[in-house]
């Protein structure tokens, strides 16, 4: 009986190192969303298919596994002297690409968690577009905001 418990305990301890052997999940912010020059009163749209200005994250993880993608999206960008500029995300402003090609995306709503599958090479990319809504009296200057992508490998 004692021997059985030792074997069971050993098995539990072994189970943790086995997890470590699976390909680790990494998420990398490759490129920010760049609006460039924005004129007061004129909305500036960046499409997720814009190769120069859309945001991009690269994901590496266990092959063929399902992922849950969820964003932490800012409502505003912060500028000079604390000035704020509204930022909005449309229902198809995010895109998942199993080939990591910007021309081959499955669009999804970045405001809603999205389930995707890693391909057999364990690599994928997420692209993001957005709209900056400058008011007619928007204070001139540089504005920034941080966008976070959370990725979970589903059990």
């Amino acid at each position: 009986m004692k021997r059985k418990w030792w074997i069971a305990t050993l098995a539990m301890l072994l189970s943790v190192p086995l997890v470590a052997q699976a390909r680790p999940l990494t998420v990398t912010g490759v490129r920010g969303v760049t609006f460039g020059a924005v004129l007061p009163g004129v909305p500036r749209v960046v499409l997720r298919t814009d190769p120069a200005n859309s945001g991009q994250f690269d994901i590496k993880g266990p092959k063929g596994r399902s992922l849950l993608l969820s964003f932490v999206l800012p409502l505003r960008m912060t500028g000079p002297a604390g000035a704020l500029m509204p930022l909005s995300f449309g229902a198809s402003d995010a895109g998942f690409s199993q080939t990591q090609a910007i021309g081959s995306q499955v669009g999804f709503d970045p405001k809603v968690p999205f389930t995707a599958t890693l391909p057999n090479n364990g690599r994928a990319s997420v692209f993001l577009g957005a709209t900056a809504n400058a008011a007619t009296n928007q204070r001139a200057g540089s504005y920034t905001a941080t966008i976070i992508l959370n990725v979970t490998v589903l059990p």
Partner: protein
Amino acid sequence: MRSITKLSLVVAALVLTGTALQAQTNNASITATASVQTPINVVGAQPLNFGNVFPGVNKTVAATDLTNGGRFDVTGQASTPVTLSFTLPATLSSGGNTMPIVSYTGVHALLATQVGGIAFSPAAGANPTLSATGALFVWVGAQVQPATNQVAGVYTASVTMTVVY
């Protein structure tokens, strides 16, 4: 033998469970950036002034009249196109009396001296570009048509210019 088999199943289950239940999570961030340009500012710099007008005698002030033409001064982002549109009154008023105002003309220029100015129709609007220093000057002229029995008095109305990028 049977107990060894059971034990093997337990061990296998524990190993597999241990593997499956460990969900991996990671995240990364990127930055959204924008450079907001200078907002447009419009000032009514000079009224459209017809001066003395006599009953039955039309009077015209040309947009090129630097003294009497109405003038708007615009500032904004250097070398950037803008759209001008106008709200133009059809009459001037003095109490309950009115006097027609017609035939609006316009000139826009990059200098307050009107050098290099371009004529346009205020009713149609215009799409000029701000100067390298972000300036634009716009003049408006028109004609008033007092009736022969026009009641004496001071007649006024507002001309509004809207500028957008």
